[in-house]
């Protein structure tokens, strides 16, 4: 796509966000003016403008994706590549049997393509729990036995883990990087079809300026109601948003840290990350390194691209709200830390804008919270209207309820409008068939919208707290990802969210005393907060029967699992059945109880 087209799309998308913010401000001013405009109203308008612009930007991405239609699949010439690729699997106190079964399935999948010999796997362990390290040694031997000795699979464990995941990858490049043309960077829960990896190498071969190619990984294997809703959302809506993003990005696309391929030379030359001066959370190692690496590649003139048409790329996601909030806390710190980097010399303007977007993704929550506080406080600070500004003729204040309604409809429209458009587009294009038909998609979309609406006020408080913690200087550290966490019991949910119940109660009390007319609107937000522990616990329950009987949240990956997924499941169940030796059975670090402890 031409440079001018990208600029035009970017300008139109930013203009759309600004126009939406202006309309929201205009409607809000009209509404607040009805009972006399005061300084707090201006604060409310400013907060509303910023948050609406943010929502409109998200909706703009979806509109770009929808209006662009289907992108034709990018086909590279089918010439077998002579390039050697290292597939890097960084692990950190993960369940080794599961991670290594992913590796085994990917190795087998690659060998089915006939190109397996050009791919070497390297398991890069930063595990510091000796018990898990011992398990890694055991399962590595089992992995070698599974795939045969002729396949190149390496295992390396660092004594200490400076630089965390980015440092782990850098350590590999500094040790062995010169041997490889490309690096496929994965996560411990990543799974990729061999054919996808071969196609990624072909695309890198076809464009010598391409520094990094990101795939759009689909979330798989969610078990709970919450996890399945996220899985559906990632499978059904995300490709449209990603298509929109791909059209706006130009040469400065995203890197999400895994399920991507990079040119070793480009990455080594551009992505040596410094330790930022000062202490965490703003100083120290760069936490959200992937955004920074994408910006640095672009700064050095390399293309960074996302190809949403690449299938066969999978990851797993958090299965409950507590786990999701824990991951969000880490991402929040990482994104806010980008405030230190946003002014780095010679970055592309779009890269700076991407950092700003990442910061806004978390700052939006406290802004909404401030908007609500201002809305409750405003009526209490209201001046008594003067019905006789001119002696003799009374002037009554105008009540602009229509403005308020239009405003509410607009904000809700920006939130759910894109989802409805994706549904309609899917019905017209036939895409819905891959998700079990339009009726099932409609049901799933309605339930997903209801669920996200109910959970949004809870997430808002988790994110607000995360932002405040980071601003107060609290470091989230580097907890192991907990992808196997199951159900959150009510007691655990209470421990993690009692403070949300307290804030919800206080909000309702304050609204009742200060702004009783505003109470019904406040209840939409504070109501779900009162039931936070119940919602967190209930949404963590397995929802297999809803899927089996109603097809709720059915995804393409579930209806037609790819071969690598099936093979990985077979390998893991076989390994676990014939384990052969007694391994420690206590839960791995980072199990649900530890999660709730972290969130207290």
């Amino acid at each position: 796509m031409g440079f001018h087209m990208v600029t035009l799309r970017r300008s139109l998308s930013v203009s759309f966000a600004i126009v939406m913010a202006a309309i929201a401000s205009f409607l809000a001013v009209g509404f607040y003016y009805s009972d006399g405009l005061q300084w707090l109203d201006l604060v409310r308008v400013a907060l509303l403008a910023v948050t609406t612009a943010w929502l409109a930007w998200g909706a703009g991405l979806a509109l770009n994706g929808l209006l662009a239609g289907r992108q034709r699949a990018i086909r590279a010439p089918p010439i077998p590549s002579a390039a050697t690729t290292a597939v890097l699997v960084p692990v950190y106190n993960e369940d080794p049997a599961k991670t290594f079964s992913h590796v085994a399935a990917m190795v087998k999948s690659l060998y089915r393509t006939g190109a397996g010999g050009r791919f070497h796997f390297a398991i890069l362990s930063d595990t510091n729990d000796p018990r898990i390290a011992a398990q890694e040694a055991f399962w590595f031997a089992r992995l070698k036995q599974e795939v045969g000795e002729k396949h190149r699979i390496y295992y390396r464990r660092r004594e200490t883990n400076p630089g965390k995941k980015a440092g782990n990858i850098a350590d590999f490049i500094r040790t062995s990087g010169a041997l490889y043309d490309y690096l496929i960077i994965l996560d411990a829960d990543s799974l990729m079809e061999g054919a996808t990896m071969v196609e990624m190498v072909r695309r890198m071969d076809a464009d010598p300026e391409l520094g990094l190619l990101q795939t759009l990984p689909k979330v798989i294997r969610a078990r709970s109601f919450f996890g399945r809703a996220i899985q559906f959302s990632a499978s059904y809506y995300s490709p449209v948003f990603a298509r929109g993003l791909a059209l706006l990005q130009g040469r400065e696309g995203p890197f999400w840290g895994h399920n991507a391929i990079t040119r070793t030379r480009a990455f080594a030359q551009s992505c040596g990350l410094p330790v930022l001066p000062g202490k965490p959370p703003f100083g120290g190692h760069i936490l959200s390194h992937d955004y920074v690496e994408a910006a640095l590649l672009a700064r050095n003139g390399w293309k960074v691209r996302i190809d949403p048409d690449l299938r066969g790329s999978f990851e797993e996601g958090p299965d409950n709200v507590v786990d999701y909030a824990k991951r969000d806390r880490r991402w929040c710190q990482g994104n806010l830390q980008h405030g230190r980097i946003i002014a780095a010399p010679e970055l592309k303007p779009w890269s700076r804008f991407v950092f700003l977007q990442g910061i806004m993704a978390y700052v939006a929550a406290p802004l909404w919270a401030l908007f609500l506080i201002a809305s409750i406080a405003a009526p209490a600070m209201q001046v008594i209207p003067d019905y006789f500004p001119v002696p003799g003729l009374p002037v009554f204040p105008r009540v602009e309820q229509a403005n308020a309604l239009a405003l509410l409809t607009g904000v809700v429209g920006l939130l759910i409008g894109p989802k409805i458009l994706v549904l309609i587009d899917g019905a017209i294009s036939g895409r819905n068939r891959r998700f079990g038909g339009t009726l099932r998609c409609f049901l799933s979309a309605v339930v997903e919208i209801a669920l996200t609406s109910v959970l949004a006020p809870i997430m808002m408080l988790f994110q607000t707290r995360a932002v405040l913690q980071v601003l107060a200087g609290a470091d989230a550290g580097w907890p192991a990802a907990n992808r196997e966490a199951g159900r959150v019991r009510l007691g655990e949910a209470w421990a993690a969210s009692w403070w949300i119940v307290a804030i919800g109660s206080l909000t309702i009390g304050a609204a009742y005393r200060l702004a009783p007319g505003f109470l019904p609107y406040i209840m939409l937000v504070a109501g779900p907060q009162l039931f936070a522990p119940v919602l967190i616990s209930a949404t963590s329950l397995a929802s297999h029967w809803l899927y089996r009987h109603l097809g709720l949240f059915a995804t393409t990956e579930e209806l037609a699992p790819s071969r690598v997924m099936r093979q990985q499941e077979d390998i893991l169940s076989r390994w676990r059945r014939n384990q052969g030796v007694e391994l420690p059975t206590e839960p791995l670090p980072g199990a649900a109880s530890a999660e709730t402890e972290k969130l207290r």
Partner: protein
Amino acid sequence: MMRVPEGQTRSRHPVEESGLPAAPMAMPEQMLVRQRVRSLFLRPLIEWFAPR
């Protein structure tokens, strides 16, 4: 900000390694935080006032 010259690899202490091939590649640290440039404005003045 600490900078490692190109070509220089840091000392590593892997506790376990199964045949990882040795083929080092330099990964120079990048400049991300602007150096403080307070002296930029002061230096010409200091030079001007300096005894000649």
